C-alpha cells in the first residue's frame, strides 16, 4: 500500500473540506477499498473515513413513506434494522460474511458499483433516490457502467431513499468462491408497475430487464416470463460462467424471485 494521510472527521462539512484536497478519496467500510489499496490499484493522497459521522448513519422513515438509509450504515445494520422492507434486509444479510457485513456500507457498495454487487440491484429495482451532499440522483441515472456512477469528484452519498414495494424479492446465484452474485435478480412490485433489476450478468453492470417488467405488470407470475427471450445485453463471460449461461440464469432467477415475492 502506498502511504496516504488519514482523516476521520465527525461532520459531513468537515468530510467535504477534507475531500477537497487533491486526490483525496472517501473511505466507507473499506471492504473493497482496502484490498484495492493493498494491490496498489488506487493511490489516494488522503483517505477521509466516513465512519465516525453520526449524520451518515441510521435507518428511518421519511415523510413520503420511503425508507431512508444513511450512507455509512453497515450491511449488518440494514439486515437488522430494515424490517419495513424485508427483501432489502434479506439482501443485506446475505452479502459476504458476518465480518464483511459489520464493516461494509450501503454508500460504499453503491458508489463502487461493482458489476456483481447486490445493493445496486436493490436500488435500481426499487427506483431508489441516491441523495448526495449536493443533489438527489434517481437510481435510473446513477449507475453508469461497470465501476462507474454519476458521482462527481469529491461528491459523497449521504442517504439512500427506498420506496417500499407491495412485494419484492432478491435471488442471488452465488459464485461459490467469492460469494458475490454470479447473477442476482431483484424484483419489486409497486402500484404503478413492476421493476426488475439484474446484477452480476452484464458487461455494463446492473440493468433493468424491460421485457420482463412489461410481462409481469399484467401478470405477476413466474409463468409470465416463461415465453420471453433472454435479455439481449452483452453478458460477462469468465471462468465462472459463459455469457449464454449467465443470460439463462437471469431468466431462472427472475422466475424464482417472482415466485418468492408472491
Amino acid at each position: 500500500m502506498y502511504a496516504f494521510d488519514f482523516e476521520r472527521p465527525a461532520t459531513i462539512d468537515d468530510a467535504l473540506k477534507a475531500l477537497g484536497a487533491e486526490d483525496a478519496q472517501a473511505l466507507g467500510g473499506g471492504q473493497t477499498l482496502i484490498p484495492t489499496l493493498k494491490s496498489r490499484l488506487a493511490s489516494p493522497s488522503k483517505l477521509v473515513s466516513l465512519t465516525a459521522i453520526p449524520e451518515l448513519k441510521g435507518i428511518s422513515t421519511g415523510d413520503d413513506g420511503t425508507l431512508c438509509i444513511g450512507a455509512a450504515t453497515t450491511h449488518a445494520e440494514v439486515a437488522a434494522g430494515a424490517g419495513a422492507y424485508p427483501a432489502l434486509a434479506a439482501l443485506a444479510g446475505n452479502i459476504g460474511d458476518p465480518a464483511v457485513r459489520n464493516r461494509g456500507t450501503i454508500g460504499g457498495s453503491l458508489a463502487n458499483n461493482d458489476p456483481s454487487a447486490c445493493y445496486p440491484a436493490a436500488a435500481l429495482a426499487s427506483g431508489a433516490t441516491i441523495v448526495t451532499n449536493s443533489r438527489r440522483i434517481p437510481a435510473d441515472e446513477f449507475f453508469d457502467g461497470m465501476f462507474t456512477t454519476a458521482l462527481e469528484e469529491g461528491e459523497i452519498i449521504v442517504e439512500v431513499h427506498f420506496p417500499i414495494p407491495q412485494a419484492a424479492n432478491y435471488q442471488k446465484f452465488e459464485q461459490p468462491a467469492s460469494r458475490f452474485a454470479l447473477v442476482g435478480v431483484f424484483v419489486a412490485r409497486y402500484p404503478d408497475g413492476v421493476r426488475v433489476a439484474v446484477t452480476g450478468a452484464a458487461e455494463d453492470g446492473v440493468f433493468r430487464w424491460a421485457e420482463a417488467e412489461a410481462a409481469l405488470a399484467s401478470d405477476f407470475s413466474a409463468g409470465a416470463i416463461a415465453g420471453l427471450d433472454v435479455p439481449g445485453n452483452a453478458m460477462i463471460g469468465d471462468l465462472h460462467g459463459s455469457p449464454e449461461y449467465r443470460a439463462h440464469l437471469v431468466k431462472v432467477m427472475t422466475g424464482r424471485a417472482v415466485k418468492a415475492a408472491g
Partner: protein
Amino acid sequence: MNEITIKVNGKSVSGPVEGRTLLVDFLRGAGLTGTHVGCDTSQCGACVVHVDGKAVKSCSIFAAEAEGAEVATIEGQANPDGSLNAIQQAFQDHHGLQCGFCTPGMVMSAAALLKENPRPSEHEIREYLEGNICRCTGYHNIVKAILAASGQDVSAIAAE
C-alpha cells in the same frame, strides 16, 4: 504519523501509526501475535478480532479507525485463571484444530456468533463461518466444537 490509543483486551495500548497501518499490524506490533494474517485480501478470516463487540477482519480496517474502540483478541479469551474458556476447551475436546493457523479467527467468530445467538443450529454455525477458511479440518469438528460450546448435544451430527 498519528498517535492512537486502543483498548485491547481491557488494557490501553498506545502507539504511533501511519494512515495505512492496518489494525492487525498494530496488534501484532504490540506483541499480540495470536491474531494471524492468512490471506491479507479479506477472504480467510484468520485475522478476525472484535471491535466494539463486533467481529471484523483486522486486515481490512485501519488501526486509526479503531481509535478509542474496545478491541478483543484471542489473547483475552481465556478465563481469568488462565484456563481455556468454553469455546477454546470445546475446540480441544472435539479436535477443532489441526495446524491451528485459522483457530484464533475461528474462536473469535464463534464467540461473536454465540453472543448473538446462544444456541445456533448446525446450519447457522456453518453460515456464520462463511468468512473463515480452514485448510486442515474440513470444518466438521469446528462446527461440532461450537455446538458443544453452546451446550448442545453433538452426538447427532454424523462424521461426514
